């Protein structure tokens, strides 16, 4: 297609050069730093990277995390290193569309991207096309202690947002709170369940494929009859808080966290059998990034235990360092197989 034709013109020989360049900058150990930012734990960046990053002053992050989470990361990073994080926040598909459109013109504004499905976007598109570089080649100190199973296709997944059930406490009595997704259709009245539009993101469809495999077609049909489709986001969480509907599922803790903070009668249950949105980081190729050193420093921070914990705390999500917080039957999202069937069972085209 046309996009491919454009990108064919792009240079493909940058990876080796990037690897060589980055290797040269990342050889010092943390304890030898002379930076103003004192290393405080494993995986902290070497002094020369910190200094080079500080000279760049800012870094641009494209993130799919909610505003409050993105802001928490930006504040913590700035406090630690004195570097301003400018972030652009959008849903994952739009973020990737924006990134790809910029990359096709040869000017990528994002120094790094942090979103759900980044291992697919990075592994199948961005890295093969030379827009992004494999994170293993960036020699990030934090990668040494990073759980290897979460390094996927040149990207590093550091945040897991399990799919949960959110419910209105005025509408659902304490003894009737749904504990599984199957319970949702039992406890809620007809048309009292918010079904965030599954077409809005493949991550939703992946969840419904898991439900189909686990509970069968009849469950999805039953869900269709009980629920009402909402465009996800503020209108859906507001309708739940208002008591316009009783339950919203699937959703993430991060999506309703702000509503809960306002004092709305909303609580969250995490079923044991669930999947989740897994957010990870991909670095823009060094030669194309506007702030390559600050990008590495931020990527290092995002995959470090410290940065991952900041994200998990702000968004109510789970750090990959702390899998004990994952539900017992948590299953990572799998590539889509029956999208049309699942959508059809849910009454959607």
């Amino acid at each position, binding site marked *: 297609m*046309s996009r491919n034709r454009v990108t064919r013109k792009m240079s493909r020989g940058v990876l080796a050069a990037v690897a060589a360049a980055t290797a040269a900058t990342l050889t010092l150990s943390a304890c030898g730093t002379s930076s103003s930012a004192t290393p405080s734990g494993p995986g902290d960046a070497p002094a020369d990277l910190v200094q080079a990053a500080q000279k760049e002053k800012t870094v641009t992050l494209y993130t799919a995390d909610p505003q409050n989470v993105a802001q928490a990361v930006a504040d913590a990073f700035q406090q630690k290193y004195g570097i301003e994080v400018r972030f652009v926040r959008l849903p994952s598909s739009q973020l990737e569309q924006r990134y790809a459109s910029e990359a096709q013109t040869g*000017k990528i504004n994002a120094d790094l991207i942090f979103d759900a499905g980044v291992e697919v976007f990075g592994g199948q598109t961005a890295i093969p096309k030379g827009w992004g570089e494999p994170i293993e080649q960036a020699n990030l100190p934090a990668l040494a202690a990073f759980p290897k199973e979460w390094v996927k296709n040149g990207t590093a997944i550091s945040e897991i947002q399990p799919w949960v059930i959110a419910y209105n406490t005025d509408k659902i009595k304490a003894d009737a709170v749904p504990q599984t997704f199957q319970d949702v259709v039992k406890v809620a009245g007809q048309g009292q369940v918010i079904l965030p539009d599954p*077409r809005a993101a493949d991550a939703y469809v992946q969840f419904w494929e898991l439900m189909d495999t686990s509970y069968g077609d009849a469950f999805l049909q039953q869900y269709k009859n009980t629920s009402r489709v909402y465009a996800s986001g503020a209108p859906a969480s507001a309708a739940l808080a208002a008591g316009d509907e009783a339950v919203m599922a699937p959703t993430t803790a991060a999506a309703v966290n702000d509503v809960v903070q306002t004092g709305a009668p909303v609580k969250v249950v995490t079923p044991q059998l669930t999947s989740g949105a897994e957010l990870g980081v991909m670095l823009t190729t060094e030669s194309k990034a506007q702030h390559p050193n600050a990008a590495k420093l931020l990527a290092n921070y995002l995959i470090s235990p410290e940065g991952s914990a900041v994200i998990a705390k702000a968004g109510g999500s789970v750090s990959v360092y702390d899998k004990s917080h994952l539900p017992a039957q948590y299953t990572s999202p799998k590539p889509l197989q029956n999208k049309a069937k699942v959508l059809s069972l849910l009454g959607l085209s």
Partner: protein
Amino acid sequence: MTTTAAPLAPPPPPPVKAPLAARARERIRSLTPFRVVTGLVVLVFALLVLYTLGTVVFRLFFPDGGFSLAPFRLAFTQPGIGKVILNTVIIVASSGVLALVVGSLLAWISERTDARLRPIAALLPVVPFLLPPIGGAIGWTVLLSDNAGYLNVILRWLLDHVGVHLESGPFNIYSWYGMIILYTLYQIPFAFMLVSAGLSSIDPQLEEAARVSGYGKLKTLRKVTLPALKPSIGGAGLLMVWFGFSLFAVPVIIGPRSGIEVLAVRIVNLLTFSYPAQIEPAVGLASVLVLFVGAAWYFQGRILRSGRNAAVGGKGRRAAPQKLGIWRRPAQALLLLYPVLTLVLPVIAFLIVALTGYWSANVRWDNTSFKMFETVIFKNFQTQLALKTSVILALVGATIGIVAATLIALYLRRAGRIRGRFVDAVIKLPAIFSPIVVGVAFILSVGGTPLNLSGTFLILLLAYLVLFIPQGTVTADAAAAQIAPELIEAARLSGASENRILRRIQLPLMLPSLAAGWSLMFVWMVGELNASALLAGAGTQVIGFQLLDIVTSGTLGVLSALVLLLTVVNLIIIGLSALLTRSRVFTGVRTVT
């Protein structure tokens, strides 16, 4: 002078075609600075549209050098696309008819009767857009959602007192009628503006003569006023087709829960639901818009150029307002109802949500605070920056936009038929594309080398101009069309230069409409969501981007505070512009005496 007094003269020589060089010299002589500037503006804008949108369209339809029907094939094999198109046609047609009836009625009350309320008439066309449209749609879900909608809660409480107990309802905004009513509310301004313009240009003596001849009020309306208004009503109807097919904010909020999908939403979903965006079918589906909007544009052009439309002539006239008697108060109430529905009620809903933090059927009045406003205005540094960027962009953009639209409209009235139609088509072309396609087109065409505009203020400004000048030219077309050619001719015969005619006649007569057009462009630019999501850089975030961000992942409390903030900004800027242009700025077009 009579011919009988003239001496016999030899017959005039047959016209001789001037040599090419002479004609070229003549052409150059006729090139006044004004014409050069106008021509340049038209040329630059047409090239901008053709280059940016052409980049995308060409890539899609000529993927490998040869023409491909893939965009159409992909578009029309979309699941359920027939139903989507049918839904759209039903909604646009029914809301269009309703809006035409209500808008015309409001215009008539405002222009021709003693029930007119000058401030209401002045603000009416802009009122629904003071709230960003996505805010207006969400505001109505908070008011009329079947379970927790504030108005429904109040109505149920009232009904309870008369022994009627309802668990939900009585109304539900998530329904066909809810959708059609909201579409109608957003389309009324177009009917109001054009019919007001038409009414103010019809010689009221016609109506007075009818009344003197014994016609009643209704018969005068039916037999005299309405036929004379045909061009205005036709133009308004066609303009509403254009706007209705493109309206996105209402169906994206109301549609999913009510199970009603329309074309504009399907197109945006194709572009945003997954990566890579499905640009081919999205652009293919734009062909449906081309069909309907193209027809609208064609008929609008015919109407405006037919010369049959009522025009502001050189003679002074003054309409004696009809006395409505006992109907005066109800008519005034009807005039007041429109701003109440489109602005006051949603604003009250947002105020309650912002003050209490979240929307609830049981409003917790003991729990009110300004925390949401503090979050939006003081704590969120990005919002402050975004607001500043948006206001500057919209001020600059609306000013350049309305000036360009005026010059384009004047050019079109002077240009030959074929050239005029071609330029008009090019200028209005962006209106049929989703703003997201326009955003992608800008990134691909001017975002990278050699211009490298990606993420800059300039790329946003250019995209806004391309997006909103088509609407601007409609206002300017209408404004230019109602100046009678004999006025210009008289000025020319009196020796006035083109510049002087523009300054002394055309601009003053067009100013009220143009000021209204400026205001509309300003509020549209301030609240633009979709193209901004792709084009705003990390350092040039705009408020539309923030709105979209909050709608997709934020809370209603914060959204309410931001919408209210934006409404206040819109009110201040539009109030100031009304003061600066002094006067009857937003009254559409008035009789010039």
